[in-house]
């Protein structure tokens, strides 16, 4: 009645890694398509430079980043108040 767990788990691995790779490959492909479409129909207006963003992404989730200067923080506070 009980299955051989290892055999089953191995099948899961094959299924799982296949799906993960397929889906992320499809995602990679679609990112490319999307990039081309955007490039064509939205010629580059004010661009976000991706160089600066990772830092922001990195700092948000950690509570220990002390990189921001006082001025930056005030600007952030101010912009928050503006937005609200």
């Amino acid at each position, binding site marked *: 009645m009980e299955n051989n767990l*290892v055999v089953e*788990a191995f099948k899961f*691995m094959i299924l799982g890694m296949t*799906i993960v790779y397929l889906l992320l490959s499809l995602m*990679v492909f679609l990112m490319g398509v999307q990039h081309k479409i955007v490039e064509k129909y939205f010629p580059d207006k004010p661009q976000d430079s991706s160089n600066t963003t990772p830092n922001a992404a990195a700092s948000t989730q950690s509570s220990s980043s002390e990189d921001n200067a006082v001025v930056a923080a005030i600007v952030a506070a101010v912009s928050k108040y503006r*937005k609200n």
Partner: protein
Amino acid sequence: MAFSFSYASNSAPAATQEKVASEQKVEYESKSVLQLIKDFFKTTGIYAILNPQDNVVNGEGKKVSKFHQSWGRIIMFIIVFILFYLAIAKGFEPLLLIPIAFGGLLANIPIANLTSDEGMLGIIYNMGIANEFFPLLIFMGVGAMTDFGPLLANPKTALLGAAAQFGIFGSLVGAAALSQYTDLFDFTLKQCSAISIIGGADGPTSIFIASALAPELLGAIAVAAYSYMALVPVIQPPIMRALTTKEERRIVMKTGRHVHKMEKILFPLMIVMLIALFLPDAAPLMGSFAFGNFAKESGVVDRLSNTMQNELINITTIFLGLGVGSKLEADKFLVPETLGIMIIGLVAFAVGTAAGVIMGKIMARFSKEPINPLIGAAGVSAVPMAARVVSKVGAEERPGNILLMHAMGPNVAGVIGSAVAAGVLLSIFN
């Protein structure tokens, strides 16, 4: 009959009120002061710990062994104190380990029974963990904090995030083998799957899957997941160094291209459509994540996006931590399975890191542009810790070589990859 009459005549009020009234009737029998003190002593925790009873039940009404009532609690107190130490002195993911460990501390207080459905921790658990809601709110907030810019600038690094999921599936096989061929552990396939997701290095995903597939293991899985996420700077570097040559680690990558705002807005929608079409079982996780990210990138609902990133995620974190901590009750945590979970979780992490780095080496070989294979290690998720570790290891070999930005691509892809892996496991059991 006489009683029922007098009872009725005394209690005009309706149902609720009657219950109160009848409770008050039997509220208290007169006792001598000595008896009162004796009885009081029997309600102390120290008495309960020194005199474990046969018929004590935990929050779920399940009998608790004498060991778990006495030494078990003491061991758990020591464990939560160790977790506090690690969180405070060593900086191990304190945002989650502190609430979890404090929940564990409270859960092990004898007599109080805080984990029952009426207890403080039980209320929290039922509010948002039993129904898997809190991890989704966390994911919403994480989505609102995540910047997919680096991934969009270099899409193919997503494959590194795919490779690292081998940590999940490899350790699933390992867990199955331990259960099949040893007498130490006897996990079911569902339990193996829930445990292996620790290799995804993503806290909310782990909790979500554990709630769904193996709630009885939730405490150990959550503690393992967050502990190993905190240990990323310890676990990963040796593996990264062992699998790469000095030359590979010194590779400098090109600066990514500019990413258009429109790409960032469309990306979360693309993710949801992909999930809708191919993996609906991952819809709660990826849907929440994409909602948070879309709210942020749309740029028109900053109020909501800020709330998700701050108040909502903070409140949820407090409750999620305490609720998960309720599963650190001695009788649930001090079982052989916990050891197995810790071992398998560590292996999963290591295997995931290795798979990411090896995939990095493969991609480096076939890519036209230079790729530093170290960034593959970031594919395990553990955002943004893993990416920082990559940057640090890279900078050791070549000071000034900032890999952080490049590692963020696989890092966020790892989150998606873990959610996909989680969805596949859920789809198998649904």
